[in-house]
């Protein structure tokens, strides 16, 4: 269901095309979706080139140590093996992320192929290329690596100890963010109540169904890669690694079989580039699922410590937050993830005095990096648990304590940044709870039912000091068809399709007549990667403005031909109309050609920039936020600890829906990923070694594990995306764990603080609360 907020105030300078839309707000199926249901869409592993080699990585067996010898002779002797490349074969063996944008993270580089040291189990050491995949796999087993193990550190908090083994000489702390406002000591001391809590999240795997994959070839001496990636701009790093000019590397992104942040860092790219560069042959690399489980980046486990001080009426006066994130062995995007955690650590609540420290810490675990929610999702479990604790301590309702503290438009977040659009979190909560209603009583005497909710706040768009920009290029052809060229990559969420809808809305070109070419560093203007829920915001704004500009370019000719007055033109259905007369876009384009009027427009949209000062912990952070509330009803088996999620509602203010079916789909899928995170998913490590790399043992929810996700959309009409839309890619994953924990607490009277909330942990909680033993012992089946 959808609720439109009445009297949504205008959002300043954001262009609008008027209140009613023809294409925006409908849910047409775009071309790529037709190919998807036919099965004909070509993903990254679906290309085959003449003479193509199959590349495969030799990965470290140990988590921490020195490589004393690499013997490739047996592998090279295997017929069919064409190359075995090691660190020596990498022209520039370094990947430098600098994810914070120079705001104080330690500079540590990651080798493409480990040369002397290995820092996590699964780290690439050599790449093998062979004529057949089976031979490549055999050859990998024949590469002999001899190690000398060194002590490692496998837990972020232990890595902070003075005598902890160093993962990198530069120290174990990658970055330490501080956000400070007000006088926390005094405010806390003066608070009527103080609640404290410690919360722990786990390593989580993206588990997109399409493993990391791609192909590479040489074309006109340009190393060309067609990859399942969110970020084609890695072309720059690939050129650096090969020590060739950037102009000699081209990256094409295929439509992805899921990304979720896991294809934001490079995966197969540098290895494919190396193989093709050295052998001059096309190559393909597809990580096995087990490789992906072992060595692909994970969501950061966060250890979060909260202290919250409030007045008797529930008003928060001060909050102290400490976040320690396990970055694993290399920096990747940890610095930014931990920044988002710090900036959002207080959630959608006004907190006058704040002290938040957030550190990314190196360990000899698999590297952590971007994953849907990007640091801002882990902290929801912390701040929402604090709110519930506060409510019970003060004896007021969970709703009331939140109502006292919700942000309103114009408030500033702890870093001092102002919230400039509507905060409709209350509406999302009311809707979610209303939809949830109250279900039937427990189905057995050893079961308990509980209901709960959680609110969340997720930024969209890059941190503003990156001065983000995106370009889009539109061309109206003389037959009236429209070409969109944009460097966006498509994760499967309809990124390309949304651009078509916006252009269609403005120019009146029917969707069938629009072709969109995306994700190619050679042929498309850059759009930046698809991450941080930024593409609708960035490229959506770029395409909106390009469409308006193109329309303006064409308007003079159209007015002339139609003999129309200023502002009289209507652009719709492939035609321009005025006063009963009409003109097809094709005729208009032809006439423009005749008159030498340009029918293309290349627009670069720049997001507002800003500065953050890491020394004061104050400054600009994110362009805007998406708010939401989830609500759940669970049934807990007191004897086995199993939790059944009976009903689940997710509500978000999406600003404006460009495509309602896709919005709903994003919310449902995000909530499901959140449910897996809350209850099932974990990648346990034992001294840095994965306990299992089987997909069978990584528990993403199946169709039988969770209920239907009900969606309740709020449209405040305010957002910084095109036409007032807000980003919705990441937000729905955020509130889930807190929501489930809150429902479980309602059912059993104890609050889970460690994720995932496994049946075993539920029993432990019940034991600790002392009530379990008696109940399970006495109750009859």
């Amino acid at each position: 269901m959808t609720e439109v907020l009445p009297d949504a105030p205008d959002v300043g300078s954001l262009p609008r095309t008027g209140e009613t839309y023809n294409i925006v707000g409908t849910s047409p199926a775009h071309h790529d979706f037709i190919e998807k249901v036919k099965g004909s869409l070509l993903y990254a592993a679906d290309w085959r080139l003449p003479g193509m080699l199959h590349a495969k990585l030799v990965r470290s067996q140990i988590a921490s140590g020195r490589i004393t010898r690499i013997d490739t002779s047996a592998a090279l002797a295997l017929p069919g093996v064409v190359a075995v490349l090691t660190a020596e074969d990498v022209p520039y063996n370094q990947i430098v992320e600098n994810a914070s944008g120079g705001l104080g993270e330690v500079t540590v580089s990651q080798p493409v192929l480990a040369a002397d040291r290995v820092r996590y189990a699964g780290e690439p050491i050599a790449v093998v290329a062979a004529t057949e995949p089976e031979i490549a796999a055999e050859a990998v087993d024949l590469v002999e690596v001899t190690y000398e193990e060194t002590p490692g550190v496998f837990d972020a908090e232990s890595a902070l100890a003075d005598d902890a083994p160093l993962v990198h000489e530069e120290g174990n702390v990658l970055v330490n963010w501080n956000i400070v406002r007000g006088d926390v000591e005094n405010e806390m001391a003066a608070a009527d109540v103080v609640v404290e809590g410690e919360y722990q999240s786990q390593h989580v795997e993206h588990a997109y169904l399409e493993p990391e994959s791609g192909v590479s070839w040489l074309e006109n001496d340009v190393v060309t890669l067609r990859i399942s990636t969110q970020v084609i701009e890695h072309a720059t790093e690939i050129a650096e690694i090969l020590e060739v000019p950037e102009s000699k590397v081209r990256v094409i992104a295929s439509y992805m079989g899921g990304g979720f942040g896991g294809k934001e860092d490079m995966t197969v790219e540098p290895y494919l580039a190396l193989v093709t560069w050295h052998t001059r042959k096309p190559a393909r690399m597809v990580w096995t699922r087990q490789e992906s489980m072992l060595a692909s980046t994970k969501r950061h486990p966060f250890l979060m410590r909260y202290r919250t001080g409030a007045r008797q009426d529930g008003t928060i006066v001060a909050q102290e937050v400490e976040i320690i994130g396990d970055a694993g062995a290399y920096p990747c995007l940890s610095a930014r993830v931990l920044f988002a955690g710090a900036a959002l650590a207080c959630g959608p609540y006004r907190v006058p005095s704040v002290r938040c420290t957030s550190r990314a810490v190196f360990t000899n675990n698999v590297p952590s990096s971007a994953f849907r929610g990007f640091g801002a999702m882990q902290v929801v479990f912390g701040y929402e648990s604090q709110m519930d604790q506060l409510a019970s301590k003060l004896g007021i309702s969970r709703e009331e304590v939140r109502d006292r503290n919700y942000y309103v438009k114009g408030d500033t977040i702890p870093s001092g940044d102002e919230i400039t659009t509507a905060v409709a979190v209350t509406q999302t909560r009311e809707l979610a709870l209303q939809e949830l209603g109250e279900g039937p009583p427990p189905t057995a005497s050893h079961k308990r039912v509980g209901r709960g909710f959680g609110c969340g706040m997720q930024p969209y768009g890059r941190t503003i000091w990156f001065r983000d920009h995106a370009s889009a290029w539109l061309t109206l052809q003389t037959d009236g068809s429209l070409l969109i060229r944009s460097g966006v990559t498509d994760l499967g969420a309809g990124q390309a399709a949304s651009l078509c809808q916006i252009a269609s809305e403005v120019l009146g070109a029917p969707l069938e007549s629009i072709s969109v070419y995306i994700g190619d560093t050679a042929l498309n203007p850059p759009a930046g990667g698809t991450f941080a829920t930024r593409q609708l915001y960035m490229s959506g704004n770029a395409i909106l403005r390009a469409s308006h500009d193109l329309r303006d370019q064409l308007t003079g000719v159209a007015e002339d031909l139609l003999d129309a007055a200023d502002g009289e033109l209507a652009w719709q259905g492939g035609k321009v109309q005025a006063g009963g007369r009409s003109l097809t876009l094709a005729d208009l384009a032809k006439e423009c050609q005749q008159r030498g009027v340009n029918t293309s427009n290349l627009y670069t949209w720049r997001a507002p920039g800003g500065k953050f000062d890491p020394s004061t912990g104050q400054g600009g952070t994110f362009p805007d936020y998406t708010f939401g509330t989830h609500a759940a009803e669970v049934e807990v088996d007191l004897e086995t600890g199993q939790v059944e999620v009976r009903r689940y509602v997710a509500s978000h203010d999406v600003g404006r829906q460009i495509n309602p079916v896709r919005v709903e789909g994003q919310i449902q899928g995000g909530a499901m990923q959140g449910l897996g995170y809350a209850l099932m998913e974990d990648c346990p490590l034992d001294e840095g070694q994965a306990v299992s790399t089987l997909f069978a043992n990584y528990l993403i929810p199946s169709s039988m594990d969770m209920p239907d996700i009900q969606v309740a959309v709020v449209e405040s009409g305010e957002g910084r995306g095109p036409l007032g839309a807000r980003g919705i890619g990441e937000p729905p994953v955020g509130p889930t764990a807190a929501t489930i924990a809150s429902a479980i607490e309602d059912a059993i009277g104890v609050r889970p603080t460690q994720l995932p909330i496994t049946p075993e942990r539920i029993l432990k909680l019940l034991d600790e609360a002392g009530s379990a033993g008696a109940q399970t012992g006495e109750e009859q089946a």
Partner: protein
Amino acid sequence: MKTQIFLTVNGEQHELWVRNDRTLLDALHDDIGLPDVRYGCGEGVCGTCTVLADNEPINACLTFAVQAQDVAIQTLSGLTNASEELHPLQKCFLEHGAAQCGFCTPGMVLTSKVLAQRNPSATRQEIRYELVGNLCRCTGYTKIVDAVEEYFGQVREQASTGGGDR
């Protein structure tokens, strides 16, 4: 050393030379060139390699190509040839937004199509049960089950009005 085999795929015979350890998945995807049969795990867990063998869903990743000579194999692309219009079940997927990244879609469609033939009156829960081995990381399943339910309704309606079987 390779073995000569003959596979019947989507009604067409193919002659291939494969190693004995070539999975049916790799033979279909790489040797015959069918992008709708996909590697997702190689463990039988995810369902992206689902194909029909004599009209029953199987794991192409857990069958060797040399074993598949005596069965009729159907993949999603066998449901429609490229020029033909979509199968009604595919239309339901499209209309309900049941595909996001689309990687799981072939397996979802094939598995539910077989269920529709066996039990078009399957409940929502029974549909979910049948699809349990077809994982989806994008949609949260709700829209997939919606799409399949709608198609089952169409099949029942057709059956009651004596329409053809498709």
